[in-house]
């Protein structure tokens, strides 16, 4: 009986000769990630357990991205505590200030996470790195503390669901639309405790930016991880970035799956997730008339240069509607600079957008774009829970950069086809 790619990567990080879904294992960690919200608790736990030295200063990433630039005294204190820890332990992958980007855009971009890795992060969207063919999963702060101390952590081996996506995508249908459709189909706990493995001809042809968007939202279906079989597209992305060896794993032909779900991508139109669950998905032709107050283009889901190019293509020679605050958040300093050099920032400014520094702030209702009572936002982010981006009576509609850009111009939810 064969193994899935998820099982193979987990097994390769143990001394076990066999592995099966449901089994509790201890596995070695290649990269352990924390941010300015989750790392302070991990550091407290690390010290309380008598931790004197991290297991490997090259295998820890601390990224102060959530409330950057520091939004208030308390958040500045949290960053200070993490900075002091990073300096004390000589943590190599420490990012803040002008070097910081949204962690799940930054780590792949810098080649810090690689195919075949086992990555844990005290941030639920750590599953993003599955796009590279890594096993990556979100954990809590105590898990991060344990991993920083021991270099290994306990896991329950997940069963896998295989998604076979076929058919040619229509013009405005991106990876974001595929994953929104999948979450709408299986629900926010449709893959609870399980791995989501994305395969099929549409996936093989899917650019890395779209794969990262899809893997990013595996958690919104309750999954432990999302994973893509690494291929030429992976190799092309990773080769110029990697500074250490990496390995491509593939599922065996006789690997066992808990479920196999087929999706005809050709039948899909752009998707929008209505409040207040990422599974509350409709096609763009069924959205009705929803007036919006804000359009947010950015985040670990859709703040990459490819996303900004799509948005700029739609916003060129157009302006955001007068009542809409359009906020563009390049996810990393490199993406910001690329957007500058390619003239995208000019297009955004002509469209009367606010260009934010790289930050998670607006997506999680931290700062840099909070919603008031009754306000509505279309956002390229990953969550639309009650109060996610501000007031508990505000609303978030999740969509692709194309739909968010078009909606900003229209002043209501809509498709680029309407412009």
């Amino acid at each position: 009986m064969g193994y899935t790619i998820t099982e193979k990567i987990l097994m390769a990080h143990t001394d076990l000769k066999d592995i099966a879904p449901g089994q509790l294992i201890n596995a070695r960690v290649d990269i352990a990630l924390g941010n300015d919200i989750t790392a302070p608790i991990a550091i407290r736990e690390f010290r309380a357990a008598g931790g004197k030295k991290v297991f490997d200063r090259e295998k820890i990433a601390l990224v102060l991205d959530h409330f950057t630039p520091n939004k208030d005294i308390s958040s500045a204190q949290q960053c200070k505590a993490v900075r002091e820890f990073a300096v004390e332990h000589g943590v190599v992958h420490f990012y803040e200030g002008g070097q910081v980007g949204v962690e799940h855009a930054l780590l792949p971009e810098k080649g810090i996470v690689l195919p075949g890795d086992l990555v844990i992060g005290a941030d639920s969207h750590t599953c993003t790195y599955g796009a590279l063919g890594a096993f990556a999963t979100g954990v809590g702060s105590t898990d991060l503390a344990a991993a920083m101390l021991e270099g290994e952590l306990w896991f329950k081996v997940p069963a896998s669901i295989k998604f076979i996506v076929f058919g040619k995508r229509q013009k405005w249908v991106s990876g974001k639309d595929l994953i929104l459709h999948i979450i709408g189909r299986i629900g926010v706990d449709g893959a609870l405790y399980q791995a989501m493995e994305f395969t099929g001809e549409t996936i093989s042809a899917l650019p890395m930016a779209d794969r990262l968007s899809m893997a990013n939202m595996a958690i919104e279906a309750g999954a432990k991880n999302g994973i893509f079989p690494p291929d030429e597209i992976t190799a092309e992305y990773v080769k110029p970035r990697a500074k250490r060896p990496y390995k491509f794993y593939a599922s065996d032909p006789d690997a066992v799956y808990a479920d196999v779900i087929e999706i005809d991508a050709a039948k899909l139109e752009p998707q929008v997730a209505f409040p207040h669950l990422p599974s509350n998905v409709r096609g763009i032709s069924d959205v009705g008339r929803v007036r919006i107050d804000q359009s947010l283009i950015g985040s670990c889901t859709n703040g990459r240069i490819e996303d900004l190019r799509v948005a700029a293509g739609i916003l060129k020679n157009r302006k955001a509607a007068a009542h809409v605050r359009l906020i563009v958040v390049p996810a990393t300093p490199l993406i910001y600079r690329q957007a500058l050099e390619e003239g995208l920032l000019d297009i955004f400014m002509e469209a009367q957008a606010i260009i934010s520094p790289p930050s998670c702030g607006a997506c999680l209702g931290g700062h840099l774009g909070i919603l008031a009572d009754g306000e509505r936002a279309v956002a390229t982010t990953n969550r639309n829970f009650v109060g996610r981006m501000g007031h508990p009576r505000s609303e978030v509609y999740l969509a692709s950069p194309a739909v968010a850009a078009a909606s900003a111009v229209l002043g209501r939810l809509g498709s680029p086809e309407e412009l």
Partner: protein
Amino acid sequence: MIFKGKVWKFGDNIDTDAIIPARYLNTSDPAELAKHCMEDADPAFMSKMKPGDIIVGGENFGCGSSREHAPIAIKAAGVPCVVAKSFARIFYRNSFNMGLPIFESKELADAVGEGGEIEIDGAKGLITVSGSDRTFAISPIPPFMEKLIADGGLMKHLTRK
């Protein structure tokens, strides 16, 4: 491990943004976080509840963000344990790792009303609704997880090892 307390009920998919909104995540102080426990699910929760009361949720309790601030806020509010039909996986591991007992029962949530009282016997794996003879089996916990709770969480478990 026996818990007896009054029940506060919540529905399906209670996410960690509802348990502890991100606007309060500029601190990790348990007492501060406890002040806002469950605020976006029920703004009056902290003014109504008393330490020892138990939270009973539906499916996928604790979905969303990995913030350990969520189980920390619940524990610091004085809630000794949570029962739900199912738990989201990061919330599940966080709870065991930090020593907040959680119990899965598909049936209990539909059998007890808000303000009702339940008694949980962790050792026997049974939940009883007070004033009735109705009992419900708790989904079994792997021995490793029992050990984590008994040791007081993951870090204490590691230092004991």
